[in-house]
């Protein structure tokens, strides 16, 4: 065996399994934002320059939410993209990992999530849809829009081995309040407001 192939084999052996990883800072911020209001919340992951599947921060865009949905403001998305470009980030670092929360138990994507992922991110070379439920369940899927395409579910992990800053709840709360508008609930509750685990039971029956 040549030296080159031995080194290559060792590198493969040492490589971590592919996962969507968040630094402890990003993970803590995501959980804080998830729990800051009664509804869903969404944003983009900002990735490390050295590892596009390592999320160093989570950024909200202006959005309207209720207990079961989140809708990004189109101008807010454009403002977010322009701000990130102004600080020198390429779109691959700030516009490819779409993260949102589910207020219930399930982190599995809904039909709306799937439609958005296909329509909005399907023309990107690659993108990730990540969901974190209030129960703690998580889901991530990496999709490739180039070549033969393809999709791969990823585990979601916290990268405790990375350096990370401490909690910054004041600025996280300020970002939440600046970005998130809670839509008034209809007076009469419908089935859509039921816990999603019940929805799964209905679906199964």
């Amino acid at each position, binding site marked *: 065996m040549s030296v080159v192939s031995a080194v290559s084999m060792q590198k493969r052996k040492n490589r971590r399994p592919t996962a969507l990883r968040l630094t402890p800072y990003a993970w803590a911020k995501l959980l804080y934002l998830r729990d800051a209001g009664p509804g*869903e919340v*969404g944003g983009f992951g900002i990735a490390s320059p050295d590892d596009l599947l390592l999320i160093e921060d989570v950024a909200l865009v202006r959005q309207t939410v209720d207990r*079961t*949905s*989140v*809708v*990004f403001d*189109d*101008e807010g*998305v*454009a*403002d977010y*993209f*322009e701000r990130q*470009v102004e600080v020198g*980030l*390429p*779109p*691959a670092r700030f*516009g*490819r990992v*779409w993260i*949102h929360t*589910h*207020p*219930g138990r*399930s982190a599995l994507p*809904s*039909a*709306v*999530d799937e439609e*958005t992922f296909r*329509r*909005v*991110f399907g*023309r*990107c*070379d690659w993108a990730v849809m990540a*969901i974190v439920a209030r129960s703690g369940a998580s889901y991530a899927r990496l999709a490739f829009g*180039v070549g033969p395409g393809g999709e791969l579910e990823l585990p979601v992990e916290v990268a405790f081995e990375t350096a990370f800053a401490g909690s910054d709840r004041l600025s996280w709360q300020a970002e939440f309040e600046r970005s998130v508008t809670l839509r008034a609930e209809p007076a009469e509750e*419908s*089935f*859509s407001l*039921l816990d*999603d685990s019940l*929805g*799964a039971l*209905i*679906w199964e029956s």
Partner: protein
Amino acid sequence: MRILMINNDGGGFADYLDVAPGTSVAQLFERQVGGRAADYLIRVNRQPTPADQVLQEGDRISITPTKIEGANVFPAMRVREGA
């Protein structure tokens, strides 16, 4: 002339481009992005823009996705809602 363009499709793009004088927003969109313009918010210098607007030296054009939405509603619930 040079403009700055921001676009998330493909490999993503956020850089300066040389375009011919007289190039319109619609022409640039067709050349650089393609697809349905209705799926994007197209702004020039942070302002919404008509498709026939002619780009000027130094303009910044951003082409960003629209209708990003998520929901936590299972299909079966929708059936019940309509029942």
